[in-house]
């Protein structure tokens, strides 16, 4: 795969802002509020519990499967309704959802992320929630994750995709 292709694929998957609307600082506060709700759910449903993640990967509890399964069902129904009824954003824009383009990175990277998920008991969201919930040592894990992303960026052209 040519270099240009790698970058275009990647830009597709990372350009997750499909709005042309320019947001002010105050405009961004609404995303902060959605984040607050998400953070509360993370803690209250023990999704950020290292124990819960171990239970999931050793099939000792249904909890996480229930959480993810319900989230996908509700999310899929919402996306279906948005498309079916052509629901617009509050600013009146047409809603666009990025298509995902497959690369072999989905498999290699996915496996590596799975390792990290089972080790830290956290995917990227819970990583930040750990910090908020008072586990100050999470800052080390976050810095390490940022270093991981940076290293990927550095070697991207040399990795199989």
């Amino acid at each position, binding site marked *: 795969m040519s270099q240009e292709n790698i970058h275009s694929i990647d830009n597709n998957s990372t350009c997750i802002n499909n709005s042309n609307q320019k947001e002010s600082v105050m405009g961004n506060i609404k995303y902060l509020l959605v984040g607050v709700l998400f953070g509360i759910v993370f803690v209250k449903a023990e999704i950020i519990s290292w*124990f819960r993640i171990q239970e999931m990967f050793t099939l000792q509890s249904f909890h996480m499967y229930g959480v993810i399964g319900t989230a996908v069902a*509700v999310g899929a129904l919402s996306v279906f309704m948005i498309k079916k009824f052509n629901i617009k954003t509050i600013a009146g824009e047409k809603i666009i959802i990025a298509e995902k383009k497959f690369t072999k990175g989905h498999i290699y990277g996915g496996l590596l992320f799975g390792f990290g998920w089972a080790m830290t008991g956290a995917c990227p969201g819970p990583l930040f929630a750990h910090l908020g919930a008072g586990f100050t040592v999470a800052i080390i894990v976050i810095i390490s994750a940022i270093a991981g992303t940076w290293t*990927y960026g550095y070697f991207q052209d040399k990795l199989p995709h």
Partner: protein
Amino acid sequence: MLEQIHQPWPWYIAGALIGLIVPALLILGNKNFGISSNLRHICAACFPANIQFFKYNWKKEVWNLFFVAGIIIGAFIANYYLTNFDAVIIAPQLKASLLKYGVTNNNELLPPELFSFKALFTLRGFILMVVGGFFVGFGTRYASGCTSGHSIMGLSNLQWPSLIATIAFMVGGFIMANLILPFILSL
């Protein structure tokens, strides 16, 4: 009602609320749900180092950093004001198997024997936090997304690459938790 808020929430309430984040972000401003991209935005903002991958207009994605700031605040609120359980519920088999490795404290969401500044200076703590964190950051970007971007947003939009990514996440997790983690914990 207040009592119920203070107890751990059941999976169907949590799952439904997380699922609703997908349409909430779309309707509020055409934003696709995803979190791991923030790690890239932080690199792009702080350490671009002339790397092609970090040369893009990260300021356009600043909403995502606000979203993450919200997660940190929400977790703080939940932990300090909305929680009064004494111990985290864990499966008895898990409790028994962790006992073998001296991991006995389940009063909090993370076992302090493995995740604390003290544990950082043990071999297994270092591996779990530093190497594990590196895998999370490297792997999610290599896979172009994490649990939120692929497993929830991607699957909600019926994207088959996201299904493959999700299967890879799970396979990786199963291999680590069942085959490799016991070795790391015994270090």
